[in-house]
């Protein structure tokens, strides 16, 4: 049977499979929201979503409404509505297990850029919205998962601008810099593969590639050469149930999932 899916759907499904049940997760805007809802529906019925504007544990309604992240549908039946200070305090005090973020650039040590491209801060070539709550999520949560399109220029030796911290910044470790111990980027899910980080050096390490792609094809699409795990796993494409759930239940208007490259695959 041939299936067709977007690489966004691939990322979402693989990220959703990573989430553990009975854990708290700090959810960024857009793709991470869809990941969390999919995980909740299929794999982790008791994950507790946390949003920076002050919603803890909502039972988000579907279809997912992109626009009103803080509105009634997405924050439906939360356990608590609170302030941003409190939402971040839960994270800073260690109560939030996972964080999930997007990124425009990522570097060898998992630092991420969502601020600007270029080498002159005053005159950026491209300007993005900046940290939002990303810096706090990446600083405070125990394990940060980054979900981003796999494009050559997005993988760099050192981000043009480090918005949110990875494992090592300009030669200094997270802990030396005062960031909470034993935290940091945990996985990077891209539209072609999955990365972790070397336990000792904090360097990006390829752990998995999408079924049908080779390691070389994935590395080809990166401006840096990451570490590669001894055994690189094959990442399954979206299952029928995942796609049905995404397309019929969560995002029927395709606001998020229809974006990206279309992939056809025999399964």
């Amino acid at each position: 049977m041939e299936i067709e899916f977007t690489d966004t759907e691939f990322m979402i499904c693989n990220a959703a499979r990573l989430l553990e049940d009975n854990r708290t997760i700090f959810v960024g805007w857009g793709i991470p929201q869809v990941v969390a809802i999919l995980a909740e529906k299929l794999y982790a019925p008791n994950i507790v979503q946390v949003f920076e504007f002050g919603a803890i544990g909502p039972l988000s309604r579907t279809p997912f409404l992109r626009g009103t992240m803080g509105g009634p549908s997405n924050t439906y039946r939360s356990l608590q509505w609170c302030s941003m200070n409190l939402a971040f305090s839960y994270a800073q005090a260690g109560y939030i297990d996972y964080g999930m973020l997007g990124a425009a650039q990522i570097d060898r040590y998992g630092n991420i850029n969502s601020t600007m491209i270029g080498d002159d801060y005053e005159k950026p070539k491209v300007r993005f919205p900046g940290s939002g709550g990303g810096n706090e999520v990446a600083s405070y949560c125990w394990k940060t998962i980054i979900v981003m399109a796999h494009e050559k220029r997005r993988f760099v030796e050192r981000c043009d601008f480090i918005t949110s911290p990875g494992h090592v910044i300009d030669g200094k470790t997270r802990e030396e810099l005062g960031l909470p111990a034993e935290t940091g980027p945990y996985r990077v899910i891209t539209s072609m593969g999955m990365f972790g980080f070397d336990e000792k050096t904090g360097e990006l390490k390829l752990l998995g590639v999408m079924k049908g792609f080779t390691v070389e094809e994935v590395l080809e699409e990166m401006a840096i050469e990451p570490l590669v795990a001894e055994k690189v796993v094959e990442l399954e494409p979206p299952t029928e149930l995942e796609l049905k759930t995404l397309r019929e239940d969560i995002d029927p208007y395709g606001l998020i999932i229809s974006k990206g490259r279309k992939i056809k695959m025999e399964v």
Partner: protein
Amino acid sequence: MEKLEVLDKGKAEIHFTPPDEFRKFVRDRKNRAFEDKLMDEGEAVKKFVKNGDYLAYDFSSLTRGPQSLIREIIRQRIRNLWILAKFTLLESVLLAGAGCVDKIDVGFLGFGPYIAKKVQEGAVKVYDWSNGSVTYRLVAGAMGIPFIPARDLLGTDTLKHSGAVVVKDPFSNQPVALMPALNPDVAVIHVQEADIYGNARVYGPTVATLETAMASKRVIISAERIVETIEFREHPNWTTIPYYCVDAVVHAPFGSYPGGTQGYYEMDSEHYLKLTSIRTDEEMQSYLEEYIYSVDSHDEFLEKKIGISRLKELIQKSQILEGYR
């Protein structure tokens, strides 16, 4: 005596009011009397927003944002604002497009290519913080303390372009970032319910509603409903902002339009799309002319530009009331 080492320091210009200066402003200019502060948005902005002010607002243009007040600020052609883009979406886009803004403290700059271009061209100056750090700054401003420590920004370029200072904490001997207090000159905040004195109640996530009100020198509240004071006294746990923080109360049904207000109406996605699709200054000017400059008030905007049948649809879409009353 011992000293605490300063390890790092951002280079941004900061809007910082020493706690004693803010206290004196509160003593002399905020009012602890129960005074009727109800006025229309024209009067409120005229009285309390000035050229060159540091402006804060709360929540976002999608949800419970003070959009009618933002439009009034644009209509009155306020200039040279320094704004706090905390969890902002289209407020900064509109304010920058209308030429009201010189500087932006960025938590989240806002959506889309238009505002990005303004920054790239140098039309507005930005300082990079994060939603968390600017919120901590408001918390410090609200508490009347000069700064608050936090374990974020550390090591990043965000820190370098912020105004945070990193010191070695004397208790844990670890580096920690000190976020300077922020006391905006003026804040505009939309709420579900307020009384004529400024007691205000918010339902749903609160972002930094109270902290913003407490920390700001002047505060304009717009409210979907004006209610009697007894409504607050009957449920004191639910009061979000006490009256003595507030300078003006504006009755503004659909005050968040084109965003939604929980328990009242949903966002207008179509109108919203008009905004997010703005790319050029010409498109921006034509939007501003059509929806802001060509009307005299929020009421006129609703009546002439949106219309009852559209508003009715948005009310109809807003059927989740649980938790909002």
